[in-house]
């Protein structure tokens, strides 16, 4: 799965499940400060990304993640 379609997938999850405005979802958007994702949402997001990509970002790696771009980078590193 390429970066663009992964980005679209993350945007869909954020919009449909976490009540985030689609326009607010950019590569630089901070998950916690701008998109109001809390630690529980982050865990749910990890689980769903694993279902989509088959890759599991380690919780330690996810702790370093701040923006959606970071999420994509973390997935690309696996």
């Amino acid at each position, binding site marked *: 799965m390429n970066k663009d379609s992964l980005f679209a997938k993350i945007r869909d999850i954020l919009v449909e*499940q*976490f*009540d985030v405005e689609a326009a607010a979802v950019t590569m630089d958007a901070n998950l916690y400060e701008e998109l109001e994702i809390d*630690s*529980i949402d982050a*865990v749910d997001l990890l689980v769903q990304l694993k279902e989509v990509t088959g890759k599991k970002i380690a*919780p330690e790696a996810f702790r370093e993640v701040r923006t959606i771009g970071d999420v994509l980078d973390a997935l690309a590193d696996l």
Partner: protein
Amino acid sequence: MGWYFEYVQRLFSTALSFAVFGIGGLLFGLFVIPPMFVFIRDRSARRVAARALIGKGFGLFVWFMHVQRLFDYRVEGREHIDDQRRQLIIANHPTLIDVVILISLFPQANCVIKEAVMQNPFMRAVVKAADYISNSEPAELIQSCTEYLGRGKTLLLFPEGTRTRHNEAIEFKPGAATVAARTDVDVLPVAISCQPRILSKQQPWFHVPRKRPMITVRILAPRPVSELVVGEDNPRNYRHDLNDALLDLIRSELDDMAFSGV
């Protein structure tokens, strides 16, 4: 000058109490817990026995601190004390002492222990025998808590995640409300005040006030989660609303306690 002697005595007693707690934990870990691993092979039977002992030990320790007049304390709503039923105890956490009092009141309740305490040589064996939940992995933590409640037991959580920072309103992290929302349990709210504050998040142990502190533990009636949030189907909004409802419950009791001067 009258306050001065009492102040020095409480300073000394505080140091003594820390020493007694550490040594007590170590002796327990060296001489009481290892035989339990040998003679009680069944993990859940050992857990029950270890927790019963910890409850008695903590009760004794509260008595020990109280006879040294380190603080006065009062427990309201004793009729709601029950550590055998399926429920989630939600308490605020103003001081190190509240957890000792709560565990002496609800010895069989499971609780979440800081990973640092899990590794602490004074406490490790005791905590392991009691089979408490570690906070090391957030994702697994929620799972462990919901599973434990699924087995019909009592779980104690401090939703603040740590002791209250004084001069700030209490805030809850989302974990406790998530556990409550996903298990649909009864919640047993406990509001705790400690005036003047001692052993809070920002205080060193020797920060002893002139006036003897009063610790009030107010246990409210248990109530089902489904009564606290009505008409919200989205799971994420549900747990947010539940968090707000739980926070309101505890905050309004704390306001009431502050108003009535306890």
